[in-house]
């Protein structure tokens, strides 16, 4: 995992995507060089979170993410 010194290595667009999908970057295993977190890593983390969430809820629908009071819908690709 690319978090030497508590730091996660990921590009600005991937960091933004993680916020958008409500994924905690520090908990993502990066598949890029030296463990850099990629867009794909964030999307699959979001999907597995969504899968386990819908398992818990026992239903299969997109999860609403609260961002600053405005709700965004986590999208599946």
């Amino acid at each position: 995992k690319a978090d030497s010194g508590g730091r996660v290595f990921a590009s600005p667009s991937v960091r933004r995507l993680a916020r958008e999908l409500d994924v905690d970057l520090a908990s993502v295993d990066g598949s890029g060089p030296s463990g850099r977190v990629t867009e794909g890593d964030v999307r699959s983390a979001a999907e597995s979170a969504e899968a386990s969430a819908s398992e818990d809820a026992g239903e299969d629908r997109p999860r609403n993410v609260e961002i600053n009071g405005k709700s965004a819908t986590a999208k599946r690709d």
Partner: protein
Amino acid sequence: MVVGDIATGTDVLVIGAGPGGYVAAIRAAQQGLDTTLVEKDAFGGTCLNYGCIPSKALITSADLAHEAGHAEEMGIHADPVVDMSQLRDWKDGVVDQLTGGVEKLCKANGVNLVEGTARFKDKNAVRIAHGGEGQGSETIEFEHCIIATGSRVIQIPGFDFANEQVWSSRDALAAETVPDDLVVVGGGYIGMELSTTFAKLGSNVTVVEMLDDILPTYESDVARVVRKRAELLGIDMHFGEGASGWREDDDGIVVTTETEDGEESEYYADKVLVAVGRSPVTDTMELENAGIEADERGFIEVDDFRRTDVDHIYAIGDIVADTPMLAHVASQEGVVAAEHIAGEPVAFDSQAVPAAVFTDPEIGTVGMTEEEAEEAGFTPAIGQMPFGASGRALTTGHAEGFVRIVADEDSGFILGAQIVGPEASELIAELALAIEMGARLEDVAATIHTHPTLAEAVMEAAENALGQAIHTLNR
């Protein structure tokens, strides 16, 4: 402009039109928010009117005149004379063009501009006092507010800027003539930029600095390159001395300094420039009425989205605690605040904040130093490339300094860089991007860099850290 005391409302009220505030206002308007920007003095703030822009304009002219006058080695014989009033006109023209541009851009993006001084009435309204006689005042109610009131120069005891002999940086930038003798109090970046400029324009410059080197926030080998050059320019530097006072004398002034041990010195001058730092402007808009408290030094604490303790009120720029007082930081914070209000998934999570000093040569830094990397728990791999080994640097006649890259030994991730040398302010951009992208040494080393450019030195420094440099011996 509205006359009398009427109340209007806005989604986003931005206070202060510096590089923090005007950028925040434009971005908020771009997001479709009804946005109002209040400014009490001049659009563009400190940066465009009294800081970054006029200082760099002066530096350009001083550099060109000085260089052309000292280039016999490359065959140029010239004896340039600088006409200060022409230089001021040009500089003022540049400032006017940019501040006029800011105003136009605000309007084009639909920002409502209000001239006046804002004070909080409560958590959801400010009162705006309009400047002149009989201009009255107005109340503006807001859903969200972004405070971007910037900073002011710090005055030290005994040196009142009201005296014409005592200059603030703003006075120095508006100078009508070049003083024969100039004492500069403070060897920080503003002090050193202006010392270099006036030395090149012909002043005998003396710098007095309390600490034991110039540019104390930079590593000593970085500062050293600038100090050596300053010495060659004839700048006289005195360390461990604090300015204690000044008095008039014949046709000039005498500045007195004191060491910690109480040893006094005196320096003759025409003007004394006091450049010991800037402090946040948070004491004039009745923050307490909005329920916000500044810390003991006047800064405001904010979260990752630049929100203050009062959720719908944001603070950005020089008034923010913990981020450096720099124009580009203010702008980035403005973007974050505006987009956060609009509900975008942003945060101020920049891995790398670059900074530049426009001395001779320039300094550009970003991210961690070797020491900081160690403190953060990394094992640093260091790569360095002296400009003396750069073909491009030699062909420009400026080959002092170096590029240093700090990376993590294990992963190769680039953590920081320090550049001192020609165009350091521009060269640092590539490394800021490298850090933000999570680039490794290998990535920078394998990227083709145009020949002959100074940017090749960035690539060579990365190669050096990997033990693969071509144009310098590997450690």
